[in-house]
């Protein structure tokens, strides 16, 4: 963490000198006053300079963004990132040429990058933030696919009267399926197995 201690005739002057040294602005820093200083008599006798300590605050979003930009560049798929924040939910949208490489088969590369970037964000953040990475509307397309899959497999389960197990999925993808079939009273859904191999089972309801 970057930190500078500066002195000046007044507190304001000391802060300004510190900001100049750090090459930053006041809203990006935390200032703690060590000594307010004294003017002294006629500004000569008993005067003491003001001392402040200025610390540059680390913006977790900025850190995460830089991390992702660097990693994707080294992967050979340079990107730009649009950031949206809604309370403790952070949404990164990736824009670039070689996005397919970053998404990977069934989004597994995107999910891995999301997990790693979330670790980076929460190293620097005070409150726990959840991060969603998206590119080329992948999450929405995947949601549509999952809803369709859920619907088709529920028909299968009803027709055969047997349980249908799906392949392992991350928690938010399972949630999509649970939600999609929540209102269907001919089947019930539950998750089985342990992370990261937890999977959904669609079971027909016996009458």
């Amino acid at each position, binding site marked *: 963490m970057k930190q500078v201690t500066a002195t000046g005739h007044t507190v304001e002057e000391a802060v300004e000198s510190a900001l100049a040294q750090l090459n930053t602005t006041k809203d990006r820093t935390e200032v703690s006053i060590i000594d307010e200083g004294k003017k002294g008599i006629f500004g000569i006798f008993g005067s003491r300079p003001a001392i402040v300590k200025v610390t540059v605050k680390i913006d977790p979003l900025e850190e995460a963004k830089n991390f992702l930009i660097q990693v994707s560049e080294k992967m*050979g798929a340079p990107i730009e990132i649009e950031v949206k924040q809604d309370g403790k939910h952070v949404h990164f949208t990736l824009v670039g040429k070689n996005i397919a*490489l970053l998404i990977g088969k069934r989004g597994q*590369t995107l999910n*891995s990058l999301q*997990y*790693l970037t979330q*670790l*980076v964000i929460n*190293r620097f953040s005070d409150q726990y933030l959840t991060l969603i990475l998206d590119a080329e509307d992948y999450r929405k397309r995947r949601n549509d696919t999952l809803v369709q899959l859920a619907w088709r497999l529920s028909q299968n389960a009803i027709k055969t009267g047997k349980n249908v197990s799906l392949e392992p999925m991350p928690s938010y993808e399972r949630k999509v399926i649970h939600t999609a079939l929540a209102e269907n009273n001919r089947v019930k859904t539950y998750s089985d197995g342990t992370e990261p191999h937890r999977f959904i089972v669609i079971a027909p309801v016996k009458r």
Partner: protein
Amino acid sequence: MKELIETIVKPLVDFPEDVHVSVIEEDGRVTYQLSVNKTDMGKVIGKQGRVAKAIRTVVYAAGSSQQKKIFLEIGE
């Protein structure tokens, strides 16, 4: 590739200066040996190996364009 591994791992650990990657090339396969500070081992492996798995997925994706098989080993 070596740089990619360092870029991923360094922000995750407490001692980025102890992150080293060495490369062993044999015919048809490349093994990257990642070593980190002993106290950082947990951070790069993670609960149930989740972090290690995520790092591998990203590294293998980046290496998919090459003909050689890529392996990533993690040690102290």
